């Protein structure tokens, strides 16, 4: 890991976080520099704080000048004075075998209460993951909801005529290349167990669908039928892939066993049906269809059947993404020629625009349903952003150089 890791850390600064709008309730928190982190390959406190900030639910409080570790009893009055409600302190120590011992403790400085701590022994390559695990602990203790910082995302970069599929930490850092190709790669999608990514590759001069075991690099050609094969989506049980095939003319939805096999046709229209996504209960498929004359999002039983229209505002609504908790639909809507990320509350049908940008693409929810990652244009380049569901806190993920696109947020990892 050494060489790759050093290159990525030297080229990656921390990402940028934008807070907009008023009326935000954010928990003020301090994360003191971990004792020993200056000698460690990762600035653990910086990673934790960036995770918490990006979630939109925390506001950083300066901790400069403080030397603390997990054993220190903090001077709670002093921390309250600084405006912090909570404090994370810890240490990182290099062991004789080259691994690192990471320890931390979380304090409620308002109630002067110890909220617990943990310790991990990790390789240098896993120091970032340990930091994300600490952020998850803090997030869960203080918000009551599960954190999704120690998850992974996949995305595609294009640099000159080279396309690469990457797997990275949820903050876009620590990228590892899964696939490099001279032809485009689009629509990566994590399997529910987080072991495989399905995607569309143009390596044979046409779009075909592969599944790819990221740990071994083993690939399986799932759909290479006559015509185009695209838009793979995993069923929640991981057994089936819905996708778009043009084998029978037009672009229509089919379901295929995740190990390959004969496709079962799900839609029967003369127009375009594409971009299927399963609801988290597996019972429904949301997808894009132009059956009404313009692309809109529809919903139908996942085995096929009659479809009902879901989006009614605008005449170009594409790229549906469903939150794992089943409450939200994110999609891209064309408004006055600009492509903007929108969020619909499914129970009420109320739609909120989330961005001020004009070339948003391909939203994907964090597994805890609290953040959306999407692609957009930033300073003339394709870039990845995360946003909170109220659109008030956005962060740009640095990831790799070049144009970054097609993000997909992976599931919670097995611990």
């Amino acid at each position: 890991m050494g060489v790759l890791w050093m290159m990525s850390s030297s080229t990656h600064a921390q990402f940028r976080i934008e807070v907009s709008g008023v009326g935000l309730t954010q928990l003020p928190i301090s994360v003191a520099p971990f004792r020993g982190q200056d000698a460690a390959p990762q600035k653990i406190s910086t990673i934790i704080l960036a995770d918490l900030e990006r979630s939109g639910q925390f506001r950083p409080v300066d901790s400069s000048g403080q030397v603390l570790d997990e054993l220190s009893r903090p001077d709670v009055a002093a921390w309250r004075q600084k405006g912090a409600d909570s404090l994370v302190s810890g240490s990182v120590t290099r062991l004789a075998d080259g691994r690192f011992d990471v320890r931390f403790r979380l304090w409620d400085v308002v109630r002067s209460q110890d909220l617990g701590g943990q310790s991990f022994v990790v390789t240098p390559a896993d120091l970032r993951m340990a930091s994300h695990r600490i952020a998850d602990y803090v997030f869960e203790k203080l918000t009551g909801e599960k954190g999704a910082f120690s998850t992974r995302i996949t995305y595609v970069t294009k640099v000159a005529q080279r396309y690469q599929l990457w797997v990275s930490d949820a903050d876009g850092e620590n990228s590892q290349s899964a696939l490099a190709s001279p032809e485009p790669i689009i629509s990566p999608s994590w399997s529910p167990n987080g072991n495989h990514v399905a995607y569309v590759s143009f390596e044979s001069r046409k779009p075909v669908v592969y599944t790819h075991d990221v740990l071994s690099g083993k690939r399986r050609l799932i759909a290479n039928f006559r015509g185009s094969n695209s838009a793979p989506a995993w069923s929640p049980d991981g057994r089936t892939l819905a996708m778009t095939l043009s084998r029978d003319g037009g672009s229509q939805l089919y379901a295929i066993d995740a190990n390959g096999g004969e496709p079962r046709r799900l839609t029967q229209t003369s127009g375009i049906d594409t971009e299927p996504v399963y609801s988290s209960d597996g019972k429904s498929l949301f997808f894009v269809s132009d059956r009404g004359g313009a692309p809109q999002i529809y919903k139908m039983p996942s085995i096929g059947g009659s479809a009902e229209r879901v989006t009614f505002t605008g005449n170009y609504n594409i790229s549906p993404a469903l939150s794992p908790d089943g409450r939200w639909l994110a999609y891209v809507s064309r408004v006055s020629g600009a492509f903007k990320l929108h969020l619909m509350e499914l129970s009420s049908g109320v739609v909120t625009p989330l961005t001020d940008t004009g070339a948003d693409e391909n939203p994907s929810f964090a597994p805890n349903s609290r953040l959306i990652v999407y692609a957009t244009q930033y300073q003339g380049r394709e870039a990845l952003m995360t946003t909170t569901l109220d659109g008030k806190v956005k962060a740009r993920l640095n990831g790799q150089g070049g144009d970054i696109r097609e993000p997909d947020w992976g599931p919670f990892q097995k611990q």
Partner: protein
Amino acid sequence: MKRFLLVLVAGILMVGCGSSVKLDDVPVEDKSGIAVNPSGAAGSGAGVAQSGVMPVELDGSRTSAMAPNSPKIVFFDYDSYVIKPEFQSVIESHARFINADKAKKVVIEGHTDMSGGREYNLALGQKRAEAVRRALSLLGVPENQVEAVSFGKEKPTALGSDETSMSLNRRAEIAYR
């Protein structure tokens, strides 16, 4: 520099092929990547083990077959999937060429301009490719000699966002394999 190093590391540490390719319906070249391991040992620590990622590198070799000496691109209007009369002669010359040799295989590659979503544009490009396929079919070209596929907005020929560039990208290309 960074990319060079990546390739170097990948080259040094390659460990063998890792691909299970199932062919279906239309044969494709086996482009199985070479699995390479840049990390040496994919170490993991107690409690926070992170799965490793095995990189795969694909090469870009490709051959192109003999094609007729006439234009190979059909351009389309904005939001249109109808072949304009001025491209009928292009279609006719290709139809004659394909009909002259039953062994010829032709792929119609549909493309769109760069605005909008990748997957939806893939479907729109498919409509353009199928329009050309149907036009060839009307001129007696057997279905089994022609495949219509789409590149969506992935392969623009013009990169600008002005109308001229956009219109150059709304096209179907006739490619012989």
